[in-house]
Structures are given as C-alpha cells and as structure tokens.
C-alpha cells in the first residue's frame, strides 16, 4: 500500500511538476517563491492523495491546491502594501526576458499583462484547460473568461506589433 502510494505520487509529480512550476512562476514571477509554492502544493497533495479518486483529474486538482497556496501567500503579504506587479519584472532572468531568443519580447509582454489576463491565458495555453474549467478555477462566468482571453491575445499582439485581424 505504502509503496503503491509512493509510486503513484512520483508518477503524478513527474507529470504535473513542469506545468505547476511554470504556472506558479508566471503568476508570482519569483523562481524561489514558485518553487516553494509548488513544493507546498505537492506536499498538500501528498497528504490528501487518497482523496483523489481519478488520476485523470489530478491536474485540475493540483491547480486548485496551488491557487489556494498562492492566495494564502498573497494574503500573508497583503498588509505589506507591496506592489505585486513590480515583483515580476524583478526576476527578468528567470522569466527568460534577458534571452536573445525570439521568445524574449513575447515573454516580456506576457509578464507585463495584468494578472486577470495572464492567469487565464496561462491556464489555457500552457496547461491546456478549457474555458469552462478556467471559469471554474477563477470563479468567473464563461463569457468573462472568453473576453479576458481575447483581450490578453490582443494586448500581446499590440505589444509585439502583430496584426491578428484579416479583412472580412
């Protein structure tokens, strides 16, 4: 039982860790904090592993836990009157903003997106969640999520001077 539980956890960790870390990093923009959040999230998942009936639902389950960890973190920091949007750009190297690669400008633009646009975009494009699932995570209505996703892409396109429109 114990060995099975360990193997199951290791398999889930291997499958989920890259997405969870990237998601956390795109939200908090601090690699050290992202690591701690993912660690706390996965240790909580480890403790509650037996409540996860279907491993196919593991990603949504873990994202929910991670979002709660992040909310707890911001709540603890709330009274510090920190401009959380200033922290992101603090770790430019971790976000690949210093890279000469072609992604650098796009990463910079993503990092500068307001969180209400950046989070649903990350959930959809990076983690592959449906609009309905994102609406569930963020406790929003589906049309609101769609609007935010569209707006996120338009802002990115504007920042990169890319035209998404085609003549009707």
């Amino acid at each position, binding site marked *: *039982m*114990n060995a099975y*539980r*360990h193997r199951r*956890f290791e398999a889930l*960790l*291997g499958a989920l*860790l890259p997405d969870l*870390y*990237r998601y956390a*990093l*795109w939200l908090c923009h*601090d*690699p*050290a*904090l992202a*690591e*701690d959040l*993912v*660690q*706390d999230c*996965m*240790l909580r998942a*480890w*403790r*509650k*592993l*037996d*409540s996860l009936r279907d491993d196919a639902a593991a990603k949504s389950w873990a994202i929910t836990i991670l979002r709660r960890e992040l909310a707890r973190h911001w709540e*603890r*920091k709330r009274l510090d009157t*920190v401009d959380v949007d200033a*922290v992101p750009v*603090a*770790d*430019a*190297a*971790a*976000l*690949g903003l210093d890279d000469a690669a072609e*992604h650098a400008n*796009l990463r910079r633009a*993503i990092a500068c997106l307001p969180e209400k646009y950046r989070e649903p*975009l*990350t959930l959809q*494009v990076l983690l592959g969640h449906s609009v309905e699932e994102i609406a569930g995570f963020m406790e929003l209505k589906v049309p609101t999520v*769609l*609007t935010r*996703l*569209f707006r996120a*892409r*338009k802002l*990115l*396109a504007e920042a990169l001077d*890319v035209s*998404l*429109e*085609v*003549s*009707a």
Partner: protein
Amino acid sequence: MSVTCLEFRRRIGGEPNARDAALIEHRHACRACAAFQDRMQRFDGRIAAALELPVPEHLADRILFQARRRPGRPQRFAAIAATVLVLLSGVWTGARYLNTGSLPQAVVTHIEHEPDALMPVSAPVGKQHLDAVLKWGDARLDGDVGPVSYARLCYFRGHLMAHLVVPGPNGPVTVILLPHQQVAKPEPFHEDGFAGVIYPVEHGSIAVVSHRDAGYEPIVRRFASKVRWTL
C-alpha cells in the same frame, strides 16, 4: 445554430482551437474567418513556446525528499501514536531543552534539506533577485556584504525568511535571516557536522552556519552590522 463573423471572431479570439459544429460550419463558409482562426492558432503556438520556461532540475527530488519525511493520511494514526509515545517518553528532557536546543537543530535541518544551496555556482545571484528575496523575508542589507551565491525565500517556523549562501574562507557559509527568532546572546552550536551561531540582531537574529572548520566567524561580523528588519 449559425454564427456571424463577429461571433466567430469573438469566440476564436478567446479560444482559437474551439471546434463547435457551428464554428466549423462558419469556417467552411467564410474564408476571412478561417484565415483569422489560422492566424490566431499560429500566434497561440508562439505564446505556448514563450510560456515554456525551464524547470529547476532539483525541484522534484526536493519534493520527494520532503514527502518521504511526512506521513500521508493512512499513516497518520501510526504517526500520531508514535509521536505520543515519543512525547511521553521524552518529557524528562524538559521544555527548556526543547526551547533552547531546537533553533540550531531546525536551522541545520533546513540547510540539509536544500543541499543544492551549497553547490558551487558560476556567478553570484543578481542584486534584483537578492533584493526581492530580502524584501519578502522582511529584511534588508544596510551595506555591501560581498558576493552571494544563493538566495532563496523559504518557510521557516511559519514565516518567510531569506536563506543566503556566501563564500567563506574555507567553503560556503549559510546565512539565514530570522526576523522572528530572538536570542538574548550569541549561541554557538555544533550540530550534525555543521558549526555555527545564532547571533542576535535587533529584535531578531541571524543564523550563520558552515561545515565544521569552514570558518563562519568572518561572515557573522560582515552580516551582523548590516542586517536590518523591515517588519
């Protein structure tokens, strides 16, 4: 149900890979909207590639190590029973021992759980990263402390704190800034192959620790006069 060009583009703008029957039907009927969807999907490919940041290689091991040390729910009864037994049999050690002996032990345990912190690095951490770690760890440095090879925000006894590593005379020296841990006077310790001191700084303290004989003392002097709390 058919959709208009406006409805199609609003939906595809939010979900470029949507494949509802009505959307597919409109796509077949409208070349401009089909081109719009193609363009959105290509742009999404670029976004997806940009979102793929490298993941630290040590993170999975770190989490597995922690998980092995923590019992899950099925083992909890056994763990609680074992804990009660340990507590009952260990009462004689007294609260004083637990209070005074536990901080160095906790510090060393924390260091042992982040072995990568003591690995050689090619370059010191950047000032922005260091400042961010210090800021979230409720601390700042009032002056230059030299190169810092590792800086991470960690949870320690319910608080976030800055975990730093700097080069010492004979090897890396860990400096943990503990704004919430008070000691009345410097408390040197030897623990599990490490030597160090919990050194009082204003209303908090700093833990300066190295492997035995690596020489942490100069680092204490360097940090003690420069650490300030921002609580």
